[in-house]
C-alpha cells in the first residue's frame, strides 16, 4: 500500500529531527526555533514520546531571562518567534512561569514607530511617519525595529490562545490594537503585503504568505469584513504557487472552515519548515489547534 501524503511528511519530519531534538530549516542543518515549533505542532500527537519531548525541552531551553525566546542556539537576541513558543505552550497546556514570561514579553513588545521619539517626530511633521495610524500597535521582527504583518499575525495567534489564562485588560487591548494594525494595512486587492499597502503613492500587491498569516492572526474577529481577504486567499491558492505559499494559504483557509480534497501521495521536499506546514494543513486535526478559544 502506498504511503499517504501525510504519512510521508510525518516520516520525513521524524527522519530530519536533529540529535539535540530540534529541526533545522533544511535537513542536516542546525536547529532553529521556527522549524522546531512547526514540527512539534505537526507531530503533536507524538507528545510524550522521548523524541517529541526532546524537541520540546530544547525549545524551552532557548528562553532568555527577559522572557523572549532566541531563534536558535547561535543567536542571542530576543525574537518574534517567541510568539510561536507561546502558542506551543498553549497547545501543550504548559501554563507555567516560562509561558507567563513569554506572554509578558509579547505584551511589552511593539513596533518602534509607536515609541515616543518617533511619535514626537510625527507630530512635528504633522503626519504619521509610516503613513499608518499610530493608534494601532503591531509587533516587530526583533526589538528596536518597526512592526510588520507577519510577526503581528503570529503574536495575535499566541495572545488569543493565551487569553483564557491571562487576567487584566492589557492582553485584550493589545489584541484589538494588533488587529487594527493589520486591518488598516490591507492592500486594495484584499490581501496583505509584508507591511505597507502602498509605497511612494503606488499600490503594492498582496503576497500569498503574508495574506495567509494575516488571516490566521485575525481569526475570531467578528467585526472585520474578511470576505475579500478570504476571496483573495482563494484566488492565490488556485494560482500556481510555491509549496510554502500553497501550504500556508491552505492552512489559513482551513481555519476559516474551507474544505480541501485529500492530497495525492507525493514526496516531501527538502524544506523542513514547508514539510511541517504541509503536514499541519493536511492532518485534519492539527489546524484547529491554532484557533483561539471560542472560535469553532
Amino acid at each position, binding site marked *: 500500500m502506498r504511503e499517504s501524503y501525510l504519512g510521508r511528511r510525518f516520516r520525513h519530519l521524524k527522519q530530519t529531527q536533529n540529535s539535540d531534538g530540534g529541526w533545522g530549516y533544511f535537513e542536516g542543518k542546525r536547529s532553529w526555533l521556527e522549524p522546531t515549533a512547526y514540527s512539534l505542532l505537526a507531530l503533536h500527537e507524538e507528545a510524550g514520546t522521548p523524541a517529541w519531548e526532546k524537541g520540546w525541552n530544547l525549545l524551552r531551553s532557548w528562553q532568555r531571562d527577559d522572557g523572549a525566546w532566541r531563534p536558535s542556539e547561535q543567536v542571542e537576541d530576543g525574537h518574534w518567534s517567541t510568539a510561536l513558543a507561546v502558542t506551543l505552550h498553549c497547545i501543550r497546556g504548559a501554563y507555567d512561569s516560562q509561558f507567563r514570561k513569554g506572554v509578558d514579553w509579547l505584551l511589552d513588545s511593539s513596533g518602534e514607530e509607536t515609541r515616543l521619539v*518617533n511619535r514626537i*517626530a510625527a507630530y512635528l511633521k504633522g503626519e504619521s511617519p509610516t503613513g499608518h495610524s499610530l493608534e494601532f500597535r503591531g509587533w516587530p521582527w*526583533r526589538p*528596536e525595529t518597526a512592526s510588520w504583518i507577519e510577526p503581528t499575525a503570529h503574536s495575535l495567534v499566541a495572545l488569543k490562545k493565551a487569553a483564557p489564562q491571562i487576567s487584566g485588560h492589557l492582553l485584550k487591548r493589545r489584541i484589538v490594537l494588533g488587529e487594527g494594525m493589520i486591518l488598516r494595512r490591507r492592500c486594495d486587492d484584499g490581501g496583505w503585503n509584508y507591511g*505597507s499597502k502602498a*509605497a*511612494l503613492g503606488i499600490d503594492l500587491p498582496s503576497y*500569498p504568505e503574508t495574506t495567509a498569516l494575516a488571516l490566521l492572526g485575525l481569526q475570531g474577529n467578528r467585526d472585520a469584513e474578511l470576505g475579500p481577504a478570504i476571496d483573495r486567499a482563494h484566488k492565490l491558492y488556485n494560482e500556481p504557487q510555491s509549496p510554502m505559499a500553497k501550504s500556508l494559504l491552505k492552512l489559513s483557509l482551513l481555519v476559516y472552515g474551507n474544505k480541501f480534497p485529500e492530497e495525492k501521495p507525493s514526496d516531501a521536499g527538502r524544506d523542513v519548515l514547508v514539510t511541517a506546514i504541509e503536514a499541519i494543513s493536511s492532518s485534519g486535526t492539527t489546524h484547529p489547534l491554532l484557533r483561539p478559544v471560542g472560535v469553532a
Partner: protein
Amino acid sequence: MQATRREFLPLAATALSASCSKKQMEPMIKSGTSAVVVMKAASYSVDLVSKILDGIRISNLDVKGKKVLLKPNLVEFDHNTAINTDVAVVAAAYEAFRSLGAQVVIAEGPGHRRDTMGIAEQAGYRQGLEKFDSVFVDLNRDDVTAVQNFAHHKQIYLPNTALAADLIVSVAKMKTHHWAGATLSMKNFFGLVPGSVYGWPKNFLHFTGIDKSIIELNRIFPKTFAIVDGIIGMEGNGPIQGTPKHAGVMVMGTDNMAVDATCCRIMGIDPNKVAYLAGAQHLGIVEQARIQQRGETIDSVATDFQLIKEFANLSLRHAVAQSMKAG
C-alpha cells in the same frame, strides 16, 4: 499620504543613531587604482559566458579551487518590469566560474519575502539554472555565525555559506533606488543578511542606516567580484516599481566601489553624491581618474536613467548645470 516609510526610516535611524555611540569611519582613502571592465551586451541571448570570462581575465582573478558564491539580486517578481538579475547572466556566471575550476554556489536572501523558492521559480531561476536545487542556497534560512562590530551594534549574524566563501560575486542589477539613489553591486549585499534573524524586510538595516549598512557589509566581505547586469536595468522608482531601461551593458571588476561608481556614470548619476559611495572611500575607488576603464568607454555606453524627484540632484546633468550656473 501613503507609505512614507522612506521618510520615516531615515528619521528613526537618525534618532536612534544619535543616542548610540558611533564607530568612527576609517579616515583613510584607498590608494592606487582599480580596473573596471565595461562590455556591451545588446541582449540576454548574446554569448554572456565569454563576456564574463573576459571580465574575469582582464581583472586578473584566479578562482581555481576557490569557493565562489554567486549572489544575484532576487527581490520580487513582476512580469511588467525588470527587478531581478536576469537568470541568463546568473547561468553564464555559473558556467564561467565553473569552467575556471571554482566550486560555485548560487545564494540569495531576498529582502521582502520569505518565500525565496517561490520568487526563484517565478524569476525563471529553477528552469534556467541547471541542477538548481543542488546549487542554490537560501541565505535567509542558512545557519549563521555572529560577526563582531556592525556600525553601532555589537555584532551581526551572517550566513555561514557566505562567511565560508573565498570570493563573493555580486551579480547585481543596474537600478535606481528610491532610498539609496542607486542599487548596484554594493547594495546587493543586503541579501547576505539572514531573514531568519532579522525578518522580512530586514528592517534592522534601515534602522542602522541604509548607507551605513551598505558600507559595513562591504567592509565585512572584502573579497569580491562584481558583475552588474545593465543589459536591461531599471529607472525611476526602483528597485521594484521602476521602469525597465535598456542600457545594453555589463560592468565587472574586483573593486565593488569602482564598479558602482562606473555604473553611476553610465546611468548619468554623480557617484560622489551617492552617500554610500561618498562615505566609503577607504573601501574602494570612486574617483574617475583612478579607475582604469577597460573595454568600452563610459561615453560609448552612457544612457541617462530617470531619477525620482527626491534624487534629481544626483544627476550628472544637474551637477553640470549647477556648476555652469555658479560659473
